[in-house]
C-alpha cells in the first residue's frame, strides 16, 4: 500500500493572493462611493476602462511569456492596479489616457519585469507618472465638485465626455476644469499670496483640504484602517508616511504659517491618504522588514512634502513612492530584525 506523503505543514490558512487583493478592493469601496457622490460617474467609467485594458494587456503578456493565464488573471492584482490608477487621473479624462497608463503599468512596469511579485516599482504609479509627464494638460483637468453639482452631468453625459469628447451644454473641458487645491496653493504662493488669502479666495477649499477631497480622504482612511485590522497591511508604512508628512509640514507651518500650508491640508490633499494606505503599502515594491517599512514610509512622506513645496509638481506622492521603491532592497538589507537567540544590538 502506498500512501500520499506530502511534507508538513499539512494544513493551511484560508488565504490566497486573490483574497488579499479582494480585501484591498473592498477597502476602496467606501472611497469610490464618496468619489461618485462628489465627482459624478467619471471614476467608475475610468475603472471599467482600466480593468478591461489591464486584463487584456495582462493576458496578452502572459501569453507572450508562455505563462498560465487563468491563475494570474484571477489573482486580482491587475484590478487593484486599475482601480488605483483610475483614482489618480481626472475622472473626465478621455478614455485613451487610462489605456496608455495601464499599458505602462501592466506591460512595462509589471510583466516585463517578470509579472506578479517581481516588479521593483509600483505599477500604478509608473502608469500615473508616465501620463503626468506625457499628457500634462489632460492630467491636470480636474473638475471641482460644485461645478458638477450645478450642471447635473448624468451617467450618459459622462460616457459621452470620456469616449467621444462631447460635453453637455456645449461646454468645453477648459470651462469645466479648475486647478486642484494643491495646485492652487502652489501657484498662488508663487504669486506671493499667503496661505490664508489663497484659502479664503477660493471656493474649492474645505476645512482641511479641498471640498469633497477631504471626505474621500476620510473614507480612504477608514478603508485603510480596516485593512490594518484585517492584517492585509501593517500599520508601519501608513503611520510613518502620514506621520512624517505631518511632522515636516508642522515644522514649516509653525515657522511661517503664511507661506506654508497646514499639516492637515497636506494630509487631506492630493494622493496622501490614498498613497499612505493603498499605494506605498504595495507589498511587492515596498520594504518588508518592520523597521524597513517605517523608514520607507517616512521617506515617502518627506519626499512628498519636498516635491509638493519645492518641486515642479503640485503633488509628489507618486514620485516619492517610486523613489523609495528604488531604495527598498537596500533599506531591507540594513533593517533585518534580530533573530531569536541572537545577541541584542
Amino acid at each position, binding site marked *: *500500500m*502506498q*500512501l*500520499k*506523503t*506530502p*511534507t*508538513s*505543514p*499539512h*494544513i*493551511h*490558512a*484560508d*488565504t*490566497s*493572493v486573490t*483574497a*488579499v487583493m479582494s480585501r484591498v478592493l473592498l477597502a476602496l469601496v467606501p472611497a469610490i462611493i464618496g468619489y461618485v457622490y462628489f465627482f459624478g460617474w467619471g471614476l467608475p467609467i475610468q475603472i471599467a476602462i482600466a480593468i478591461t485594458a489591464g486584463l487584456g494587456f495582462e493576458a496578452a503578456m502572459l501569453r507572450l511569456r508562455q505563462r*498560465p493565464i487563468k*491563475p494570474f488573471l484571477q*489573482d486580482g*492584482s491587475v484590478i487593484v492596479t486599475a482601480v488605483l490608477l483610475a483614482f489618480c487621473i481626472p475622472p473626465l479624462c478621455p478614455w485613451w489616457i487610462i489605456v496608455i497608463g495601464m499599458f505602462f503599468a501592466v506591460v512595462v512596469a509589471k510583466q516585463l519585469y517578470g*509579472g*506578479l*511579485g*517581481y516588479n521593483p516599482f509600483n505599477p500604478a504609479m509608473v502608469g500615473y507618472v508616465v501620463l503626468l509627464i506625457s499628457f500634462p494638460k489632460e492630467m491636470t483637468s480636474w473638475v471641482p465638485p460644485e461645478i458638477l453639482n450645478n450642471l447635473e452631468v448624468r451617467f450618459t453625459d459622462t460616457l459621452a465626455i470620456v469616449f467621444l469628447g462631447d460635453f453637455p451644454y456645449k461646454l468645453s473641458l477648459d470651462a469645466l476644469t479648475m486647478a486642484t487645491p494643491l495646485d492652487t496653493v502652489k501657484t498662488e504662493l508663487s504669486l506671493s499670496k499667503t496661505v490664508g488669502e489663497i484659502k479664503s479666495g477660493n471656493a474649492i477649499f474645505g476645512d482641511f483640504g479641498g471640498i469633497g477631497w477631504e471626505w474621500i480622504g476620510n473614507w480612504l482612511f477608514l478603508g485603510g484602517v480596516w485593512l490594518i485590522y484585517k*492584517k492585509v497591511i*501593517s500599520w508601519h508604512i501608513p503611520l510613518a508616511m502620514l506621520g512624517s508628512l505631518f511632522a515636516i509640514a508642522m515644522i514649516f507651518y509653525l515657522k511661517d504659517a503664511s507661506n506654508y500650508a497646514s499639516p492637515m491640508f497636506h494630509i487631506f490633499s492630493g494622493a496622501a491618504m490614498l498613497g499612505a494606505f493603498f499605494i506605498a503599502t504595495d*507589498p*511587492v515594491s*515596498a520594504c*518588508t*522588514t*518592520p523597521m524597513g517599512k517605517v523608514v520607507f514610509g517616512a521617506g515617502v512622506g518627506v519626499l512628498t512634502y519636498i516635491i509638493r513645496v519645492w518641486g515642479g509638481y503640485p503633488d509628489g506622492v507618486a514620485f516619492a513612492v517610486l523613489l523609495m521603491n528604488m531604495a527598498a532592497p537596500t533599506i*531591507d538589507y540594513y533593517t*533585518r*530584525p*534580530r*533573530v*531569536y*537567540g*541572537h545577541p541584542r544590538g
Partner: protein
Amino acid sequence: MIRKLFDFHGGVNLRQHKKETTQHPVQTAALPKRLILPLHQHIGHPAEPVVAVGDKVFKSQLIARPVSDISAAVHASSSGKVVDICEHDIPHPSGLKAPCIIIETDGFDRSRRESVRTHNLNDLSPAQIRNIIHQAGIVGLGGAGFPATIKLNPGDKKVETLIINGAECEPYITCDEMLIREQAVEIIEGVLIMRQALQASRCVIAIENRKFKTLDIMNKMVARSGYDFIEVVAVPTVYPAGGEKQLIQVITGQEVPSQGLPIDIGVVCQNIATAYAACRAVEHGEPLISRYVTIAGSVVKPRNLEVRIGTPISDLIEQCGGNRQTLSKLIIGGPMMGFALHNDDVPVVKTTNCILVNSVIADVPLPSRSVSAMPCIRCGACADACPMNLLPQQLYWYAKAKDFDKVQEYDLFDCIECGCCDYVCPSHIPLVQYYRFAKTEIWNQEREKQFADYSRQRHEFHNYRLEREKQEREARHKQKRAEVTGQKDGDSKQAAIQAALERVRQKREQSAVKPKNTDNLTTEQQQLIAEVEARRAKKTTIKNKH
C-alpha cells in the same frame, strides 16, 4: 502567585480540534499479535539486541541494550517469542526500513516478578536516578526522542527552572492532556524525580490556557501535594507556544542562545509524558513499554489509547473504527510538524504521540500542492508569523536561488520548521520544503567539504611522506657513503694526490739539466743556441716519429 508571562514573536492561531479525542477516558489498546520493536527509536546510537530469534521474553524484559550514553534501551512490551530480528518499516519520513525485533505475543502479558524493583526517591542520588531512567529506556516523549538522561545531567551548570511541557500546541494532539487528567499525581512524582536529578530550584508545569479542565486538575493536584516550588502556568494558546524555545521565552522571558542549549540559561525543559515515564521507572520499576497515543481524523471513534510500544498502527486504526481500505494519508504527529507515512504497517514507537488518519484534514482548507504556488508578493505575512523572528521570505528567495551563503547569513539554521510561515502564505508557497532542501544541501556540502578536506589532508600527508622518505633515503645514502670512505674522505684523497704530484714535480726539477752561463749572451750566440735547439727538436721529433 500569578506569574508574569512573556510574549514570543509571531505564531498562529489554529483550530484546535481537541474536543473529539478528549471525550472518553483513555483505554488500553488491545494486545497485538505481533510487536515490532525498532532498535533505533531515539536520537543517538541504535540499541544492540541481547535476545536471539527463538528466545522467549517476558513483558518488560530488556531485549536491546544501549550501546552508549546517547542511546536507549528497548524492552519487550509484552510476553512472547522473538520470531525475527530483521529490517522492517518504521515510522520515519524517509520510508526506509530499519532493524527491528519482532515479538509474537503469547497473550499472557506476563512479567517476571523479581525484575520489579522500586525505589525510594529520598535515598537516590542524581546519578542513581539518571541510571534508573537510562536503564528504563526513557527518551524525550515530546517528539524528538533524545535520551532523557542527557537532559537530566546538567554537569556543573546550575539549573534554575525545570519546565515541564504540557502545552501541546499542535491541533488534534491530546495525549498529554489526557495524561494530565488521568495521571496528575504520578506526573507530580515524576517532576520531583527530575527536580532531584537536576537539583533544580523551581519547577513550572506549562499547560495551554484553553485547557480549562486539565489546568484545573493539575492546579488542584499541585495544591494538594503542598510543594510550593511547583507552579502550574497557563500559557497562551498560540502555536507554537509548546515549542521548547518559545515556551522558555514565554515563561522566563529569556531566549535560548542560537546554537546553544536551554541549560546555558539555567533552564531544562522536559515533556510531561517523560516525567510520567520517569515516575513509572523510579517508583514502580517499569521500563518505558507503553505510552498514550491520540488517534484522530477520519475514524469512527477518535480517542486516546494507552498503546504498547511496537503495536502496529494498522491495529490501532482498526480499533478506532478506521477503514484500512480507504486509507490514503497517515500523519504521525500534528498537522503542522508531523510527517506522512508511506504505509500503515509500521509500529508505534516511543515518540509517536498522534496518528492522524486520512482526511483529518478535510475540514481545514488545504491547498492542493498540485496547483502550482503563486509567486511571492512579499506581503511579509510569513515574517509576522515567524516565532524565531526570521525573514522567511528572504530565506525563500535565497534557498530558491541556491545561494547557500546568503541563506545562512539570514540564519536558516535558526529555523525550527514549525510551519507558521507556510501556513499563512497567501501564495501557498511550500516554504518549509525550501528550507529543508537548503539545509540538506548545506549539510551535504559540509560533508563533501569535510570529505574533501580529509582527502586533501591525506593527499598532503601522502606528499609529505614521499618527500620525507626521499629525504631520509638521501640522508641514509650519504651516511653510507660517508661510512664507506670513512678513513680517507674526499679532502684527504685530494691532498694525497696533490702531494704525489708535488713530489713528481720536485723530482723532475731535480733531474732536469739546466743550461748554464746563458744569461749574458750576444745575439750571435743566442742565434747559435737557437739553431742547436731547433736541430735537437727536429731530431727528437724524427726520433719520436719512428
